[in-house]
C-alpha cells in the first residue's frame, strides 16, 4: 500500500534533517514544498554549506526536485562606528 505523505510533514522532516544532520546542523533554513518541487530558503556562512544543505534535503525527500535558493552571507568591511 502506498502511503501519501502530506507535504506539510515532508517539509517538517526535511527541516529537521537539515538541523540535526551532522553535515549541516543549520537551524534557520525554510523548506517550502509546491507540488513536486522543494524550495530551500535562508542564509548560511560558507559556500560549501549551501551545497551540503541541498544534499541533506534531497536525501530526506527523495522524488522531489530540490531548488536551492539558500544564499551565502556576504561579509563586507566593518563600516562606520555607531556612537551610543
Amino acid at each position: 500500500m502506498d502511503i501519501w505523505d502530506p507535504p506539510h510533514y515532508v517539509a517538517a522532516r526535511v527541516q529537521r534533517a537539515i538541523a540535526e544532520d551532522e553535515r549541516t546542523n543549520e537551524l534557520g533554513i525554510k523548506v517550502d514544498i509546491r507540488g513536486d518541487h522543494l524550495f530551500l530558503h535562508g542564509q548560511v556562512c560558507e559556500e560549501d554549506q549551501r551545497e551540503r544543505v541541498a544534499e541533506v534535503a534531497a536525501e530526506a525527500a527523495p522524488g522531489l526536485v530540490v531548488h536551492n535558493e539558500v544564499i551565502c552571507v556576504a561579509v563586507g568591511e566593518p563600516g562606520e562606528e555607531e556612537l551610543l
Partner: protein
Amino acid sequence: MTIRVAAVGDIHLSEHARGTYRARLNGIEERADVLLVAGDLTRHGTVEEGQVIADEFRGLAIPVVFVLGNHDYHSDAEQEIMAMLRATGHFVLDDSAEVLLGGRLGVAGGKGFGGGFAGKCANEFGEPETKAFVRHTREIADRWRIALKGLDTQHRIVLSHYAPVKDTLAGEPPEIYPFLGSYLLAEAADAAGADLIIHGHAHAGTEKGATPGGIRVRNVALPVLGRSYATYGL
C-alpha cells in the same frame, strides 16, 4: 574618553574555515579597543573546531571576550572549548564578569537561554522538563545580576548569545521567539544597570533595539550585520 567596542556573533567556523577567518580581523586594533564575540563560534561544538577558533583569534592586539552559543554545546565539549580559548589568552564569560582596559570597562554575561518574552513565555509550572527549561534561564539571569553588580567600572556591557528583547528578533518567525531568548536576561540587566547589551543567535533578526529600561541592545549575528563586525562607541 570614548571606548570603541567591536562585536560580532554566529561566525560558525568549521574545520573548513581554518586559516580563512583571520583576514577579516586585520587592522581591528585601529578601529576598536576590545572585541566581543557573541557565541556560536563553531558549527558542531567539537574540540577540533574550538582549536580553529583559538588559532584564528590568537595574538590579536586588542583583548577578545567570548561567550559560547548553543552550537558550541552540541558535542558536550563546551568546558574544553572554554579552557582552550582561555589558554590562548582570551577571556570567556560563563555567567561571570571581566574587567578590561585598566578598569574602564566591565563585561558580564554568558550563553543565556530561551523561554520567551513577557506575557508570552514559558513558566516554571507543570512537567519537570518544562520547569527545568525555564529554571535554567532564571538561574542564568540571577548570576548575571550578581556579576553586573560586582562591576565597579566606568562602563558596563552585557555579552550574551541568546536575545534579551524581541526588538532585535524582527524578521524571525514569532513562533520561535521562545527559543531565541528570554526577557529575564533583559530584566537582570535593567535591575543592575548596563550601557549596552550585545547578543547574536537570531540570524534573521535586526541589529538595533532597547530593553524596557532603555538599555541599548545590538544583535551582532554575522548574517544580520553583513559586515566583519560592528563598532560601537561608548
